[in-house]
């Protein structure tokens, strides 16, 4: 508990942790938004979510290796992942859309294992990062350091989330996606090509994660086996916020990011992931207990 005392003696550490938490939390919110989209529209929990983030990061690394600015990696990763998502839908996902959710969990888990190993073979297991070329801000006499790329990543992920929200609200395809989420059968009767909507939804989710991954590799770091924590975080955020609640997703994402930073500082970095996973279980158990009072259950 030495670290706890430190937080009280030097309150400026709180600021550092809080800011770091907010910055990473926006990324979590972005990935969670994609998961909520796929979950709500297609009734699939995409376990490969974290792997899409990782792939976006590696594509940005390729862009950097080609001598281009890493900021170009964001559209490049989004585009590449959009194509990959569409291909995956046409190959595998369309067969499991109407099926048991258990099957979709396992199938996407299989996809995630494949991607992990593929990236491990191609890029190696090292922790990688892309240099953004942006500077660092020092606040409070240098006690708090804020890398500008983290601020940029934060702003960009909010912008991307809002763009997607506007797309879902106003664009023709976005409206078709929301109609399918409400009632797929009715949408089909009214002339919506639900198969195409599903493909677009899955591809948009992949693109979203790809963009998030591009931000992660610039502001933090990536490696081939980073996926599962991102998937579980997304899942947790979606459970807390509920499906189709953008403001809730952002709030839960930022809150999770901050909570994780503080937990990592207080408990030690080696327990940070354990904290995340236990928090997931605690959230689920808490929801379950409150529902059980009303003779309902998590389903």
């Amino acid at each position, binding site marked *: 508990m030495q670290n706890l005392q430190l937080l009280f003696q030097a309150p400026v550490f709180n600021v550092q942790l809080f800011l770091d938490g907010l910055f990473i939390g926006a990324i979590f919110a972005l990935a969670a938004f994609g998961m909520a989209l796929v979950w709500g529209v297609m009734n699939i*929990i995409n376990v490969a979510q974290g792997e899409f983030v990782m792939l976006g990061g590696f594509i940005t690394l390729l862009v950097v290796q080609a001598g281009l600015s890493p900021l170009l990696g964001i559209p490049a990763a989004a585009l590449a992942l959009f194509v990959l998502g569409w291909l995956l839908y046409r190959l*595998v996902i369309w*067969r*499991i859309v109407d*099926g*048991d*959710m*258990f*099957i979709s*969990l*396992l*199938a996407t*888990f*299989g*996809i*995630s*294992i*494949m*991607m*992990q*190993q*593929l990236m491990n*073979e191609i890029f190696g297991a090292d922790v990688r990062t892309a240099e953004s070329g942006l500077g660092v801000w020092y606040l409070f006499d240098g006690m708090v350091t804020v890398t500008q790329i983290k601020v940029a990543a934060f702003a960009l992920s909010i912008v991307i989330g809002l763009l997607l929200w506007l797309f879902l609200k106003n664009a023709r395809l976005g409206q078709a996606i929301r109609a399918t989420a409400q009632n797929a059968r009715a949408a089909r009767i009214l002339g919506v090509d639900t198969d195409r909507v599903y493909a677009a939804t899955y591809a948009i989710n992949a693109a979203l994660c790809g963009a998030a991954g591009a931000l992660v590799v610039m502001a933090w770091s990536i490696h081939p086996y980073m996926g*599962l*924590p991102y998937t*579980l975080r997304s*899942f947790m955020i979606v459970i807390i916020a509920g499906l189709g609640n953008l403001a809730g997703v952002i709030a839960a994402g930022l809150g999770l990011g901050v909570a994780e930073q503080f937990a990592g500082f207080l408990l*030690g970095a*080696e*327990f940070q*992931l*354990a904290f995340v*996973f*236990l928090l*997931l*279980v605690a959230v*689920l*158990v808490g929801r*379950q*207990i409150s529902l*059980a009072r009303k003779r309902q*259950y*998590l*389903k």
Partner: protein
Amino acid sequence: MSTRTAGIIAYAALFAIGLFGPWLFPAHLSQFSKLWLFMVLALSWDLLGGQTGYNSFGNIMFFGIGMYASAVLQVGLIYPVADYTAAKGGGTEFVFSAQQIYAGLALGVPFGGLVAMLAAVVFGALLLGMRGHYFAIATLGLAVATAELAAGWDYIGAGSGMIAPPLPNDIDGTRLFYYLSFALAMLTIAFLAWLYATRFRLAINAIRDDEDKAEALGHYTVRNKMAAWAISALFTGLAGAIYGNLSRFIDPHDIAFNAEVGVWMILMAILGGMGTLWGPVIGAIVFFISKELFWTYLLGWQRVALGALIVVIVVFFPEGIVGWVKNRWPRLFAPPTEEDSPRQPDNGGEAAHA
């Protein structure tokens, strides 16, 4: 031939092959020990997944808990565990006599199973109220959390893991653990065959088919679910305890709480046929052989092949081998009718039919 006779014949055949295993395949003995243990994992996963309808993605935690609990007891009977793990198990001062080793094994392995069972009761009280994918993700979260906790806990060696006590030099450890694994697999099959012949199976199948109706009918669904998970955890924990001694090196992420192995057990059950006794056995054999082939011939790309295999199995072949055979030749599995039975009732037969 009824399914019961076929089952007995299959069990006898498996028993014979297993018993003479060390002479049939001496070069691959430790692989075959793992096969027996994987069979136990698939069978015990299926008790909750296939029979009760609760798809746990986290049964691997019982494997790891059993492994660590056994190793801690085996060491802790003789030396302080913290000193032992601090020396990374390599210290020369930690000498075990033959008696201490056998006593440790005899106590440690059942202890591992019991601790895992206890964990299942505790977690079951918290998690078994959830259904479907919520239960699946909650168990997955719990399993990876246990892995992280084990990797951060210095008492059991933290990230660098723990080393199980060595065997006496004059003992062929591979063969000893082969027979232990084999015995556990045979025990599991026999126990589950008995369990699936009781009313308990009907009760848990009712939960799988419609839990609300089962509850409305007055079944103690919570008690039955907990019992199913506890039995499942007991066997998984026993398998973990033996596996830890077999591999000797216990690593939190790669061996004890490997989430991927947690998915393998599901896959073995699906591949063979969920909700059947022999499905997981057949699935374990087929899966294990293909896994060993991947690891031998596709090294580096083995997980790519494995991931593709997972996708293909769950998307195209979800009913499994036994399920496929059942659909193809349903008459083989039909309950015996009067036409099949050799003894015809000499009176009242028509009346019963009318």
